[in-house]
């Protein structure tokens, strides 16, 4: 079990991270440190390595060089460490990835029950609490396919929260949604941020970044090119590539 922070150990520390797909280098010497309670927004053009980077944090992708430490635990081939980190790191995917053969409630209960060995009653209480929090308690007995995209993504957030993680990763959580459903998901994320969750979000929702982020990262070509608080990032970026990107996403 990972102790809650007392030593000043950052929630996440990434040093010189490299990742290859065959001969293609997807990440080049990434360095990043995230404190507890910090909210990071990662943006950049597609193929820039944003998703790959956050997928390395819970070992959905295996890195080839450098070090990753999550909540003080080194991420390496040790299966025990990987399990420990995955229990403490929640993830929300672009395509929700809800389990279609389970009800919304079961989606939220399964992992606490079989991974954290919680009794059913406790898992159900937790699940209902978080479904309430993402504002869809009435959908608990439905199957994912009966819900709208926005509702499904909120279930996915609730499902991740039911594990009571210390860090939440968001991989383009609103990119697959119809425009009118984006805000209901972002609202939930804003609430979560205001409660002090450590969050790393890959997103192009610049309004959200401005409102919530402590730092905005700009990635391109597998590198972090810029790292700044949102005000500075949007108004006085030093990097030409960043300025171009910002003007493109804010252009409309």
């Amino acid at each position, binding site marked *: 079990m990972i102790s809650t922070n007392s030593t000043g150990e950052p929630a996440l520390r990434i040093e010189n991270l490299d990742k290859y797909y065959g001969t293609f280098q997807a990440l080049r010497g990434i360095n990043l440190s995230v404190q507890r309670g910090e909210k990071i927004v990662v943006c950049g053009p597609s193929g820039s390595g944003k998703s790959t980077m956050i997928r390395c944090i*819970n*070992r*959905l992708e295996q890195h080839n060089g450098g070090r990753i430490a999550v909540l003080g635990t080194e991420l390496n081939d040790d299966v025990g460490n990987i*399990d420990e980190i*995955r*229990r403490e*790191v*929640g*993830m929300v*995917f672009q*395509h929700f*990835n*809800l*389990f*279609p*053969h*389970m*009800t919304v409630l079961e989606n939220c209960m*399964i*992992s606490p029950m*079989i*991974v*954290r060995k919680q009794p059913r009653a406790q898992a159900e209480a937790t699940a209902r609490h978080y479904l309430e929090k993402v504002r869809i308690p009435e959908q608990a007995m439905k*199957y994912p*396919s*009966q819900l709208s995209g926005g509702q499904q993504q909120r279930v*996915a957030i609730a*499902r*991740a929260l039911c*594990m009571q993680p210390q860090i939440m990763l968001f991989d383009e959580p609103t990119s697959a949604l119809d425009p009118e459903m984006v805000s209901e998901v972002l609202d939930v994320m804003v609430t979560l941020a205001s409660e002090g969750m450590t969050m790393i979000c890959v997103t192009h929702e610049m309004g959200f970044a401005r409102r919530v982020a402590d730092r905005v990262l700009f990635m391109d070509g597998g590198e972090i090119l810029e790292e700044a608080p949102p005000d500075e990032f949007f108004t006085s970026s030093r990097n030409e590539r960043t300025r171009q990107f910002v003007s493109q996403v804010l252009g409309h």
Partner: protein
Amino acid sequence: MEMVIVAPPAPGRLEDLRRRFFATPLQAVVSLACLTIMVFLVWKLLNWAVFSAVFTTSGGPEACQATAGACWSVIAARWRIIFFGLYPYEEQWRSALACVAVVVMTVLSCIPAFWTGRRIALVWGAGTGLFYVLMKGGVLGLAHVGEEAWGGLALTLFIFVTTCLIGFPLAICLALLRRSELPWISRTTGLIIDGVRSLPLISILFTFAVVLPFALPQWLQGDKLYRVILGSALFFSAYQAEIVRGGMQGVATGQEEAAMALGMRYWQRISRILLPQAMRNAMPATINQFVISFKETSLVVIVGFFEILASGNAAYGTGEWRFAYVEVYAFIAFIYFIFVFSLSRYGAFLERRMSVSER
């Protein structure tokens, strides 16, 4: 010009028939001709099977030969051979009870309420245990009956059920090994699956029944029946493994990633997330495989077992009933039909039940 569109009145049943079958004179002729042929065939069949048929054994085979109809008296006279084969006459009630045990076990394990690990293990353990004790005897005051004397429906059911009970888990293991990330494991498994699939079932049965004893030490050989069942289970698993693998390929990769991100271990991901969805995808092909396997049990006759079809041969094969083979085969076909048709309907029920969670 003004057009007024009015929905045509819904045709009555007679009108509907007229439009479908008697719209033109030619169509009317063809329809009538087909109808006549159908009525004629149905009449011939009914006449043979029911009206002119002989049902009782009182007249013996001679009564049958005097009529043009079916001779069902052969079934009445020889049903014990068909159902029980060479099983000793006084003990045949045990074979009948054993069949009931297997059928009850199968039906129970088809009911969703029994789909927990403990209950299904209990049902299968009790069912096969009961079958074995009843058939083999030697305990509880039951006379000992060796496997070589088992036969008929009991043997067919036993071979089918044990083939599936052994073959299905083996198929899942093979399918999982074949998608292993370690190339030497996945390739070896692929080689085994493709190897077994490229052999005829008969040659596998023959090898396991006749050739294997030369290669194995005495204590490992077991009875021929169990070697044959192992061979047939291996054959079943090679096909079923590919069906399961196909089902797994239909599950989005995001499913396993989500399960990993939630901290589930390998077996938890497999058993809770991957397999339930894969089996749903694979359901139609799986039912198909079960049906094929049920009918393939008849091949064990080549290594000397009298399952139901071979027992049927014996039923008409001895002298006096020799002419009545059509009736015997029709009866056996009917028994096959009952089992296979139930299996298919059960498959349809499962598909309906599973589709509830998808839409």
